[in-house]
C-alpha cells in the first residue's frame, strides 16, 4: 500500500518536472520519439479494409455454400437438383474463401499491433507475405468459379456444353453473387498489399 502511494504520488511530480524542462525524458531508445502520424493512419485504414475483406470473403463462401436449388418437378431418370457440390470448382471456391476468411480473422491482431507500434517492421512484412499469398488464393478461386459461371450462363457451342442457368435460375444467381463478392475481396486485398508496402517505407 505504501509503495503504491509513493508511485502514484511520484508520477504527477515527474510529469510536472518534464513539462518545466528540468527532468530527463523516459530512457532514450535507439531513436528519439517520432510522430507515427501517417503510418498510424495507414495502419488504421489497413484494419478497416481487412474487416471489409473478411466480410466479403465470408459472404462469398456463405452464398456459394447455400446455393442449393431443387426444381419443383421430377422424372425417374433426370436430375433436377443443383448444388455447389456438383462442380469441383465450386467446392474449391467454398473451401478457399473459408480459408481466406479465417486468415483475415487471424491477421486482425497483427493489424492492431501495427496500429499500436507504427514503426515495427516485422508484423508488416509478415502481413505483406501472407496478404500476397491470400490474394493469389482468392483470385484463383474467384476466377475459376467465374469461368464455370460464365459457362453455366452461356454454354459453349463448340464443345456441346449446354447452359444450365435457364433451368436453375436461383442457383445461378446465388453463384454469380458469390463470385462478385470474391472479386470485391480481391480488390480489397490489392489495397491491403499496397498499403503494407507504403507503410514499409523508411522515411
Amino acid at each position, binding site marked *: 500500500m505504501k509503495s503504491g502511494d509513493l508511485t502514484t504520488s511520484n508520477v504527477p511530480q515527474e510529469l510536472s518536472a518534464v513539462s518545466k524542462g528540468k527532468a530527463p525524458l523516459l530512457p532514450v531508445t535507439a531513436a528519439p520519439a517520432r510522430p507515427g502520424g501517417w503510418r498510424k493512419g495507414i495502419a488504421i485504414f489497413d484494419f478497416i479494409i481487412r474487416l471489409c475483406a473478411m466480410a466479403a470473403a465470408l459472404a462469398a463462401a456463405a452464398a456459394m455454400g447455400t446455393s442449393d436449388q431443387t426444381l419443383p418437378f421430377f422424372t425417374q431418370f433426370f436430375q433436377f437438383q443443383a448444388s455447389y457440390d456438383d*462442380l469441383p470448382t465450386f467446392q474449391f471456391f467454398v473451401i478457399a474463401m473459408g480459408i481466406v476468411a479465417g486468415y483475415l480473422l487471424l491477421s486482425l491482431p497483427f493489424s492492431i499491433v501495427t496500429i499500436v507500434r507504427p514503426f515495427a517492421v516485422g508484423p508488416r512484412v509478415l502481413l*505483406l507475405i501472407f496478404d500476397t499469398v491470400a490474394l493469389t488464393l482468392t*483470385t484463383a478461386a474467384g476466377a475459376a468459379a467465374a469461368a464455370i459461371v460464365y459457362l453455366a450462363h452461356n454454354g459453349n457451342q*463448340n464443345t456441346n456444353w449446354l447452359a444450365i442457368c435457364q433451368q436453375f435460375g436461383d442457383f445461378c444467381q446465388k453463384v454469380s453473387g458469390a463470385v462478385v463478392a470474391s472479386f470485391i475481396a480481391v480488390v480489397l486485398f490489392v489495397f491491403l498489399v499496397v498499403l503494407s508496402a507504403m507503410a514499409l517505407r*523508411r522515411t
Partner: protein
Amino acid sequence: MKGSAAVELAEATRAPSAGINRGISILDLILRIVALVCTLGSAIAMGTTNETLPFFTQFIRFRAEYNDLPTFTFFVAANAVVSGYLLLSLPISIFHIMRSGAQNSRILLIILDTSMLALLTAGASASAAIVYLAHNGNAKANWLSICQQFNSFCERISGSLIGSFGAVTVFILLILLSGMALSRR
C-alpha cells in the same frame, strides 16, 4: 551525445545494407526475366493450338482451337499483357540495381506487380477450371469431356498452364523482394 552515437551506428550499417539491397535488386531482375519467359511461353503455347481430327462429317465439328473457348482467349490476352508489362518493367529494375535506395519507384513497381499478379492468377485459374472440365467433364451438368477426342489439343492447353502458374509464383517472390528492399534501413 546519444544522437551522434545513433548516426555513427547508422553509417556503420549502411554499407553492408546497401550491398544486400543491390543483391535483392539483381535477384529481382533475374526473376523478372524468368517470369517474362514463362508468360510468353504460355501465351504462345496456348495461342498456337490448332487440332483437326482426320475425319469429318457435314454437321459435326472436328476442329479445336484456343478461341473456341472464351476463357482461353482471356488466358492468352492476360499472359500477353503480363509479358508486355514485364518487358517494360525491366528498365525500372535495372535502375533499382544502380540506385538501391530508390523508394517511390519501388512502390510504383509493387503496385503494378500486384495488379499484374491478380490478372495473371485470374487468367491461369480460369483456364485451369476449363482444362479440368475438358479432362473430366461433369455428369451432373451433362458436360462431356473433350479430351478423349482432341488429345494433342488437351496436352497443349494443360502444358501451357504450367508456365503461367510458375510465373504466378515468381510474381509473389518479386513482391516480397520489393517489400524487403523497401523495409531495409
